[in-house]
């Protein structure tokens, strides 16, 4: 029999107290795992969303660059328009590898999702596919011509609208009926919820002749970006946004929420530490005579210190395991909650819990046990055997 087994059996002495303390640690660990999982998951999902836009540089009409970038990413109304001639000028630049113009417009559909909602329409050209080579057709094909009254629907939008290639689709507000020429495979990006139509058709039916909302650009060499940006600086009506900047800015926006959640996690950890110290200290005081007898029959200071330390490590270790399980099981709920709170939530899993993260949390919980156990273990090991034995007499 080892000290570790004695420590484990000691925890069973006051089951309710032990369970509650383990629960406290578990909650702290679950919050921490979810937070770290969210940090990692959000970054991955954002990178995925931005990378799958296919371009590194976005040219939009002058305004708030990050609002524009977020609207391009997320969709929504309120985008400013720029003149198409800007595109005609920029396309001549030899530093450009690939370029595509876009016109985004949203239409309110009173029947959408039961309570009404916006549907996003995007006018595109075939160059759009060169920037997103991973895009594949689930069914159907590209528009029959660049002015056709046709749409290509994203995977999720097609499921929502229950449309197949060849079906008709009605655009409320402008009372226009278009034909579905194709449906894209799932991409895991915002494109899945978008309805695309030829750029010229979009300009015509939305009454936005010669207007664009953005130009996506992939440079041959990204180190050319500062010079490229500088050259476009003189264009009064436009602004250049690098997607790396967009990622950074969105992460900065999210950092406020992260600080809040980190504070909650920090408080939960402090509460858990106090809970563990309190539980173990009470247990030590209740066992004063027993500890005195252990020392009388040959237990050294180190034996007693280790015994109490093992108890805190066990509480925190078990709390760590339970907390990790809670974090895994509650991952979807956390994601649902977080998505509702955040101004911009990328597609995909926002809470990314890896085995490395779980291991780190378990180690963290054990370290928490080591720290929490120092004082109670010190108190127990410092007891003088005679005084300890006499304490209950």
């Amino acid at each position: 029999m080892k000290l570790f087994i004695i420590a484990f059996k000691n925890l069973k002495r006051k089951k309710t107290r032990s369970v509650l303390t383990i629960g406290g640690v578990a909650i702290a660990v679950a919050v921490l795992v979810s937070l770290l999982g969210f940090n990692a998951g959000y970054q991955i999902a954002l990178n995925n969303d931005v990378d799958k836009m296919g371009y590194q540089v976005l040219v939009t009409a002058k305004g708030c660059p990050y609002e524009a970038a977020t609207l391009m990413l997320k969709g929504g109304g309120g985008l400013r328009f720029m003149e198409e001639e800007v595109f005609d000028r920029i396309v001549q630049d030899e530093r450009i590898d690939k370029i595509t113009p876009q016109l985004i417009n949203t239409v309110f559909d009173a029947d959408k999702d039961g309570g009404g909602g916006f549907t996003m329409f995007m006018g595109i050209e075939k160059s759009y596919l060169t920037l997103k080579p991973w895009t594949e057709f689930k069914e159907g094909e590209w528009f029959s011509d660049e002015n056709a009254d046709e749409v290509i629907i994203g995977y999720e939008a097609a499921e929502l609208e229950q449309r197949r290639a060849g079906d008709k689709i009605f655009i409320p507000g402008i009372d226009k009926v278009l034909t579905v020429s194709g449906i894209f495979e799932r991409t895991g990006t915002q494109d899945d919820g978008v309805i695309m139509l030829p750029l010229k058709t979009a300009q015509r039916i939305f009454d936005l002749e010669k207007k664009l909302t953005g130009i996506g650009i992939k440079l041959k060499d990204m180190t050319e970006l500062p010079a490229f940006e500088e050259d476009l600086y003189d264009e009064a009506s436009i602004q250049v946004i690098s997607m790396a900047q967009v990622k950074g800015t969105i992460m900065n926006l999210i950092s406020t929420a992260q600080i809040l959640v980190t504070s909650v996690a920090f408080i939960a950890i402090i509460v858990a530490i106090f809970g563990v110290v309190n539980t173990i200290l009470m247990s030590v005081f209740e066992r004063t005579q027993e500890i005195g007898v252990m020392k009388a029959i040959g237990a050294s200071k180190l034996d007693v210190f280790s015994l109490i330390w093992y108890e805190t490590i066990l509480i925190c270790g078990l709390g760590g395991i339970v907390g990790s399980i809670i974090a895994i099981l509650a991952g979807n709920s956390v994601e649902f909650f977080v998505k509702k709170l955040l101004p911009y939530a990328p597609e995909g899993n926002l809470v990314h819990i890896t085995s490395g993260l779980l291991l780190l949390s378990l180690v963290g919980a054990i370290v928490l046990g080591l720290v929490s156990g120092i004082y109670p273990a010190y108190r127990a090991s410092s007891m003088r055997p005679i005084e300890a034995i006499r304490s209950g007499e």
Partner: protein
Amino acid sequence: MDNILESKSIKKYYHRGSETVKALDGVDFEIASGEMVAIVGPSGSGKTTLMNIISCLDNPTEGQLKIAGKDVTNYTESQLIKIRRENIGFVFQQFYLIPTLTAKENIELPFVFSKKSIDPQRINTVMERVGIQSKQNIQVNQLSGGDKQRCCLARSLMNDPAILIADEPTGKLETQVRDAIFSLFDELVQSGLAIFIATHDLELAEKTQRIIHLQDGKIVQREESSLYW
């Protein structure tokens, strides 16, 4: 017979404000192997203080204490732990067993603390000797008082001590059980173990080979002892 314990002019003084309390004031006695000695005295006579000092749980203010031929008077705490592990067994009135462990696990504790590998044969021999073998897997809080004391006795014998120190060992036991425990003590003494018993139970004390009467921190003659008046 060799003396297993020698106490020479042991004094223990405490200070209470400006007053000096002489808990022990020059106590001389010896205990040899195979001897059972009882210490009796009224409350406040210094019995417990003497027990603590000869158990190596406390240091005397003055005097000399030898256990198994070693002068332990000025030993450090870690040296005293070693002496307790190797030479002294303890039996308590309150048993002080760990309630979450079985009888056998309690008995194994001295092995755990002395970092020795557990010797199953030794455990079985000791359990058989004190009559607890059939209850070895029962959690101690489910045992009767007599069985708890047997368990406590077995625990004290695990490291094969030279002296057994028993503090009111039969204080909480019924007469029949008390006699059984005393018989065990008797057997152990015959096998060479020295036993030192502190008790208020004069009937039990009378059964030992020698009685030390303690009063006001000093050893007195039987006729001087207030217990007999």
